[in-house]
């Protein structure tokens, strides 16, 4: 745990609500977490749980119908209170972002080099030639072969994995303190995924930046994250360091997600899945938002939503009946040993 250090980015009680024609959508509803220098924070959850909205809130890139409350502080600056020009200085320079779809996140009509240079010229006030050289160096660093040639190529001439590498080069070109990676490997096939994650880790060691890794894939989290936030329906349901979370999950949702990972070490006829679907954000259930899908659900869960409580040191869970998960775990273990 890094608790002795000062957090670089601190999100406190962040609420992002959208005014839509059908009503108020509480995409993110009061989440808090910290990102310490040099660490990787994983944010996991199903589609629609608010993880991408959370990252766009930090960057202040949401549409005008979004209403953001709470506090986001980066170093000593309160991001939600900055003016737009001040915010532009932070974007790309201090906090950068990489996106899910490398196919569409690069502009098709400009060369890769052009797009990397744009940010360098803007934030670092370099000349065109210097920026070009830096773009080539960046491409080399992210493992693109023949960077002097590739720098003048168009996005359609690169493969998916190469484009994601180029995106990473673009995001890291100004040496940001925080890199938000929004499902960076989802659109790539598995072998390329591993390469990209490996690359991000080595670049993190080199540059010492913090990474917020947003994903629905616990495999990715296991690979890179130091600490993990599990989100469900706009709220944090479990928050712990990665080792604790994988060894000792306390929330039924986390337990379900972990169970849903296919295993090679035991015989499985059917893969486990969590029954039901994510509730409609316009019409969240009363009480614990997970109760409609939870196999341990009791009357109490339907009435009032549990608070996020610290069950062990630095391990937060939003559930009344964490002991039921414990029983289940014990049973599973017994079954395996038998």
């Amino acid at each position, binding site marked *: 745990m890094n608790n002795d250090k000062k957090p670089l980015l601190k999100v406190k009680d962040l609420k992002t609500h959208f005014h839509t024609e059908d009503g108020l959508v509480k995409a993110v509803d009061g989440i808090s977490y910290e990102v310490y220098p040099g660490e990787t924070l994983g944010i996991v959850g199903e589609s629609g749980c608010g993880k991408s909205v959370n990252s766009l809130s930090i960057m202040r890139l949401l549409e*005008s119908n979004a209403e953001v409350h709470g506090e986001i502080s980066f170093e000593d600056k309160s991001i939600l209170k900055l003016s737009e020009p001040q915010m532009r200085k932070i974007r790309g320079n201090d906090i950068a972002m990489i996106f899910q779809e490398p196919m569409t996140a690069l502009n098709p009509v400009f060369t890769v080099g052009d797009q990397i240079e744009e940010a360098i010229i803007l934030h670092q006030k370099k000349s065109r030639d210097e920026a070009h050289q830096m773009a080539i160096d960046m491409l080399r660093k992210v493992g693109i072969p023949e960077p002097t040639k590739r720098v003048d190529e168009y996005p359609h001439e690169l493969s998916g994995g190469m484009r994601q590498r180029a995106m990473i080069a673009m995001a890291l070109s100004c040496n940001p303190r925080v890199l938000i990676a929004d499902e960076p490997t989802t659109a790539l096939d598995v072998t390329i995924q591993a390469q990209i994650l490996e690359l991000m880790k080595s670049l993190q060691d080199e540059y010492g930046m913090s990474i917020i890794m947003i994903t629905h894939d616990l495999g990715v989290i296991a690979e890179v994250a130091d600490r993990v936030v599990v989100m469900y329906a706009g709220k944090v349901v479990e928050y712990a360091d990665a080792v604790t979370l994988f060894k000792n999950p306390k929330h039924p949702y986390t337990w379900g997600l972990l169970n849903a990972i296919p295993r090679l070490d035991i015989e499985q006829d059917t893969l486990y899945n969590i029954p039901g679907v994510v509730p409609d954000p316009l019409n969240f259930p009363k009480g614990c938002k997970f109760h409609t899908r939870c196999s341990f659900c009791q009357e109490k869960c339907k009435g009032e939503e549990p608070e996020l409580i610290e069950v062990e040191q630095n391990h937060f869970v939003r559930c009344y009946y964490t002991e039921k998960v414990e029983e289940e775990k014990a049973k599973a273990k017994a079954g395996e040993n038998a």
Partner: protein
Amino acid sequence: MSVQKTEFKRMIRRYFKSPTNLLGTVLLILFVIIAILAPVICPPKAGADPFKIPIATWSAAPQAPSADHPFGVIGGRDIFYGVIWGTRAAFKIGLVVSLISSVIGLIIGSISAYFGGWVDEIMMRITDIFMSIPFLVAAMIMTTILGKGLDKVMVALIIFGWMRVARLIRGNILQAKSEQYVLAAKALGIPDWKIIVKHILPNTIFPVLVQISMRIGSLVITAASLSFLGVGAEPGYADWGTILSYSRNWMTELSKSWFAILYPGVAMILFVLAWNLVGDGLRDTFDPKMK
């Protein structure tokens, strides 16, 4: 760089594969040559405005084509001179009006789409108001207010000619705006105007270029109809519509005045056809959705 070149070559080859594209291009080149060589083909009198058709005769009656006046004479003016120099006038009207009105439309449409919200609302309602006025009527009223002359006609056509482009570009930008590369550029802290100019316009401009080329032809017809109605270019101006307007008085006696309709009419039809064929060809070649 080499990739770009071969891609360009491929485009050119694809363009000229179609005989209609070839025909359009050849016609257009022909018109360009005529416009450039106008002072050689029909040298104007020294010191006179070359766009004024010199007076050939003071008799009002039309004169059939002859060796001196190959396309005949109407209203005392040499039709051949009018058709040749009219080519220059046609290019002037078409290019200037369509370019300036498109730039206006481009600016209004892109500001409207990019900023959205009430900016969009106000700008699009203004566009609607301009669109709700019938074009020809509006242009006629404008020229009556501004006075006669080709430049006045051009001003009128520009004022009432930008809306279609504004709408087209707005729609395209709204689509491009939701592309992830725009969000990615924003996430890098690129300022708004740069995102519009660099990331959005190059991805949306092409349909506008096709529209411009198609409009050049039809604008010439509109200008000619204004001249024909007597609110366009001043009498004696070397403009196809002006020559046609002379034939108005002789319409009941076509056997005596057919040449005054035929030659400028054919020139006009071929000019419009050329631009339409070229515009069509450009769209077929460059619009990826048409493949």
